[in-house]
């Protein structure tokens, strides 16, 4: 049996999926990255191997997410794609006539506009994270509730309060004031959902035509409070597709399937989960720019280098 792997390594979570020849999701994983992307990728590959029947052959692998290059080198990816393309490919797979994709993740939020199945425009958060999952994460911590309780509690609100939500700092102080005046937790939570959606629509979706069908994906789509506010704001039903939290990984898997047509895969095998990787960094002193170069190595062999303003180090790593 041939499978295609998709790996999406985000800032907060790592997603790994395996698709079969018919592009059905065989297995999916959702892990916390916890600031250790390499270990998490290895862990993810090990776990997904356990979930798959023995003897499967990996015919292709694709990576996406903010650590896509790192993941690509570690796993031996056939395709390394940015999150926007991967999410669009994933969403189109489940909702072929989608015209608007709302994608809210841990650190990044995006809007993708499609017409006739082709991405025609996109927007991404620019200078702040007040329209992303980490905003909710922070405030949940502050209110001493788990992120899973957030949505269900928020929709119990009867009289929502308005929270200043331009950034987490403003939100936090405004929220404390609202608590002290005596507003209920539910109303404050709903107010936070409202603040996030307001920020998202004012910053990320600014000037974009949000036609239905609207697909909502990413980790934040778990939150029923956000879903409801978004529905009210866009005045259209919101579709939350199955595996919405893994959509980037599914897109990466689909792209990998496309990429290996007519050639073999460069996937390094599940054994990579046993390899010891070392990451180091140094300041390049070749010129006055003093770039910080990061390097990934195993057993003293440098696999890749990143981070220079010029391509000096990328070139040397190709040679070795």
């Amino acid at each position, binding site marked *: 049996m041939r499978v295609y792997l998709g790996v999406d390594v985000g800032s907060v979570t790592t997603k790994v999926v395996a698709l079969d020849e018919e592009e059905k999701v065989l297995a999916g994983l959702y892990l916390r990255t916890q600031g250790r992307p390499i270990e998490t990728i290895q862990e993810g590959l090990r776990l997904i191997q356990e979930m798959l029947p023995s003897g499967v052959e990996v015919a292709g692998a694709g990576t996406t997410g903010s650590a896509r290059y790192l993941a690509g080198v570690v796993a031996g990816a056939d395709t390394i794609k940015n999150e*926007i*393309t991967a999410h669009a490919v994933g969403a189109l797979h489940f909702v072929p006539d989608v015209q608007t994709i709302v994608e809210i993740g841990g650190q990044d939020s995006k809007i993708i506009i499609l017409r006739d199945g082709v*991405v025609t*425009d*996109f927007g991404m958060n620019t*200078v702040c994270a007040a329209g992303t999952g980490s905003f909710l994460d922070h405030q949940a911590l502050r209110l001493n509730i788990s992120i899973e309780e957030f949505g269900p509690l928020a929709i119990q609100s009867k009289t929502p309060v308005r929270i200043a939500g331009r950034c987490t700092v403003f939100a936090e102080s405004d929220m404390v004031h609202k608590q002290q005046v005596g507003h209920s937790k539910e109303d404050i939570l709903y107010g936070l959902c409202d603040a996030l959606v307001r920020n998202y629509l004012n910053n990320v979706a600014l*000037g974009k035509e949000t036609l239905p069908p609207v697909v909502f994906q990413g980790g934040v789509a778990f939150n029923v409070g956000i879903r409801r506010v978004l529905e009210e704001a866009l005045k259209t039903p919101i579709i939350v597709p199955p595996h919405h939290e893994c959509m980037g990984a599914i897109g990466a898997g689909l792209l990998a399937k496309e990429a290996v047509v007519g050639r073999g895969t460069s996937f390094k095998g599940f054994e990579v989960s046993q390899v010891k990787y070392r990451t180091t960094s140094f300041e390049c002193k070749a010129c006055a720019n003093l770039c910080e170069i990061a390097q990934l190595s195993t057993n003293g062999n440098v696999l890749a280098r990143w981070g220079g303003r010029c391509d000096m180090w990328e070139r040397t790593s190709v040679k070795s």
Partner: protein
Amino acid sequence: MRLGIFHMGNVSLAARTFLRELKVEIVIPPPNSGTTLSLGTRYSPETACLPYKLILGNFLQDLEMGADTLIMVTSTNVACRMGFYARSMKGTLEDLGYKFEMIVPGDSERGLVNLLRFIKRRANNVSWLKLVSAFRFGLAKLSALDHLEQVVHRMRAVEKTKGTVNRLFQEAQEAIDQAGTWASLKELEKEYADRLTALPQDPQAQPLRVGVVGETFVLMDPFASRDLESELGKLGVEVRRRNFASRWLRPGVVSSGWKEEAHRAALPYLKRTVGGEGWESVGEKVLCSQDYDGMVHLLPFTCMPEIIAQNILPSVKEDIPVLTLICDEQTGKQGMLTRLEAFVDLLNRRRQRKKDESLSRC
């Protein structure tokens, strides 16, 4: 007098030549780097823009290196707070205990003439003839570099081995900096233009054309824009930029033809200057949408003129995608690269779709 200058792409190189020709003693700070930026950020108001922070960082290094005079450009139209920057910087530096003089040429309508008059006085009262010829020589270097940069923008997209163009351009910058005569300058310009165009090209390359617009400083200084143009080149994109310093530094009649053209084009959407290059950014989208596959709009964080432009850009009826990127000392380069990659993907697919449509029509 020891005159301290600040870096802004090719402009500082040209200014250096001009002052050297006049035998004015100058101080050149180290190239813009993280050090410059953290130095500038430390003494800047928090919401000051990136150009402010970089220039202040340069000035601090200048003064440490023994400069006693600084030149700070300013705008005569008051629509942008840049008009206040010279005074604010002067205050900051004086509070830190530095003794220096700051020349602010833009303080009157005749900014350039005032600047030249000042430099003439300080350069042992050289004749106007000598002064003007030195200025023209500096400007000629700037024009040569700007011309080469346009070739670089084209060649980066199609070069066979990525990085060759950048290395050759750096070599050209160093050689042009050293050039002492008009004849050698002309020769160098031609030599490097030829060498750049003769580089081995990728036969499969079909570069997209992306226009880069926005605030001048971040547009011209690769450090400020996180090497945006070079990164676009790596992704196989031919960069088109209309705003080059040599175009607006020419005194008198020929100076602002391209600007006026952009202003006229922007009129249905924006009727007056909003400071900075806001007006031009809108105009270029209207003017160049036929030529460009897409546009990247660059601005420093908190730049009011460009924020106005950013809000107008989507409503312009000429329909090409615009990616707005905000530059700040907090900007992470990886995030910028992700957005650029996605943007280039989007443009490629749009082009493919147009091709398919025109095929199905036949």
